[in-house]
């Protein structure tokens, strides 16, 4: 089993080599679509043979060079250490033959996934594979470059990823149907690593940046700031200012007449009737309760409290509520502020 796997893969390599040869023997302008189809088919094929593999245990055919394979006509020699598992080669080749980079990424993830179940030997191989993965990625990259040069002859192709991908999808929809549900679709650009760890890292980073965009819409004044550290700082400031505003408002509510009898229903309808008001319009209004900045914060507070809210309806203020308000219940802001600070630091 341990030996059968590389041999199967070498067999695939041989076939792919043949496809390369046939392609390079003069017809590659017209056969690019065919190549893409071929590459996609091979990728699905490799998965299938991986699953079938334990049945082919006794299959012994001697291939002459287990460690070294040459692709002379392409002018690229792939050198592997003899100790390393030679099916790493397959990653590079299948990655290039199904040329679009997303397909390459998918392929690797699919393979990593399918190799999980095969037990101990495959675990060792995967470990060795990780060591050589960067090498494979580099070779993958160079192969893609060659591919891009070939396709530059056809001027309609702008980037090798998009147009090829559409063709690829059109022509072997069956294979992609089989592979689709197994992976998260990640687009790997040229030169990016395609092992599963960096793919997961990329997915995570994309999710985080999407969340950051959402938060950017939520926090006022955050649109101008570029860079995540500055945005996070702005978010922190905003959350702190909101928390302090809550503290201040509850302070104010505590300082208002304690014996005031609440008429809940009345007040509730009034609260509901008010139009939604943007709370803090500017980052200038942020509240900083450092003792050094007390004066600034007080003016800022006054502005935030008094400015944006306009009372639309003053008719309800007349009768029932004012009858119960004590004269001692009116606190001005300075007194409140002193009390607030005294409460904070004592």
């Amino acid at each position, binding site marked *: 089993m341990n030996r059968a796997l590389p041999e199967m893969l070498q067999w695939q390599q041989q076939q792919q080599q043949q496809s390369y040869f046939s392609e390079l023997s003069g017809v590659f302008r017209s056969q690019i679509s065919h190549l893409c189809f071929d590459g996609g088919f091979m990728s699905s094929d490799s998965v299938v043979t991986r699953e079938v593999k334990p049945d082919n245990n006794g299959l012994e055919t001697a291939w002459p060079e287990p460690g070294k394979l040459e692709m002379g006509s392409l002018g690229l020699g792939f050198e592997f250490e003899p100790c390393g598992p030679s099916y790493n080669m397959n990653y590079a080749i299948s990655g290039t033959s199904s040329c679009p980079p997303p397909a390459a990424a998918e392929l690797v993830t699919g393979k990593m996934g399918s190799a999980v179940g095969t037990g101990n030997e495959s675990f060792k191989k995967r470990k060795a594979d990780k060591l050589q993965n960067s090498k494979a990625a580099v070779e993958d990259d160079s192969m893609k470059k060659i591919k891009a040069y070939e396709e530059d002859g056809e001027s309609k192709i702008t980037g090798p990823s998009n147009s090829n991908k559409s063709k690829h999808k059109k022509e072997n929809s069956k294979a992609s149907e089989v592979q689709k549900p197994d992976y998260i679709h990640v687009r790997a650009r040229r030169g990016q690593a395609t092992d599963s760890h960096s793919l997961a890292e990329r997915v995570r980073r994309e999710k985080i940046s999407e969340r950051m965009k959402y938060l950017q819409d939520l926090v006022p004044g955050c649109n101008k700031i570029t860079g995540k*550290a500055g945005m*996070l700082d702005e*978010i922190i400031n905003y*959350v*702190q200012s909101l*928390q302090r505003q809550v503290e201040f408002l509850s302070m104010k509510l505590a300082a208002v007449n304690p*014996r005031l009898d609440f008429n809940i229903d009345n007040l*509730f309808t009034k*609260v509901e009737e008010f139009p939604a008001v943007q709370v803090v319009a500017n980052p200038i209004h942020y509240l900083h309760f450092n003792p050094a900045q007390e004066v600034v914060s007080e003016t800022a507070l006054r502005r935030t409290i008094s400015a944006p*809210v306009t009372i639309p309806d003053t008719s309800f203020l007349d009768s029932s509520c004012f009858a119960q308000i004590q004269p001692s219940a009116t606190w001005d802001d300075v007194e409140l502020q002193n009390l607030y600070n005294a409460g904070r630091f004592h």
Partner: protein
Amino acid sequence: MNKYNPPRMNPSSLRSRFATRFLRSLSEINAQKPTASSSSPTEIFRRYRRIKVAADKSMAYSVRSRRTWSRAMLWKLRTRPCGRRSVKTSTIVRKTRHEKQNKNTTTATTTGEDGVVSGVEADELRELVPGGEAMDLYNLLDETAHYIKCLTTQVQVMKKIADFYSP
């Protein structure tokens, strides 16, 4: 996530749920002390504490336990008595923030620029959002977004109540 879009009189919106709860607890607080020496500063400070706790609690209850931050806030309010500890923690947070801002100038240059957020700001945000200590960055940002929305609602409602009583 999308539930904060307050239509005017929707009784199930977060805004009206918070308003009803908060007004109810506020009236309870006010009903409890009819004739105490209610204008002394210590008394008012105690009332302030209670109102603050009531605001937090009614906010967390109207979110219910769907969110991590509301669960954490309810747990904190349940376990700690409404004493002066939150005052202490807020001062500590402010101190550490100033300390960290000095560090920040050095670390922000060393950490990578392609989307890697330096951990200092994330830790600050973790201290601010309740229950954010054990979250990874994605969940932390998610909770922060919801928390900001709820805080905005809370501030709006409380501001209107305050304006109602002291015009």
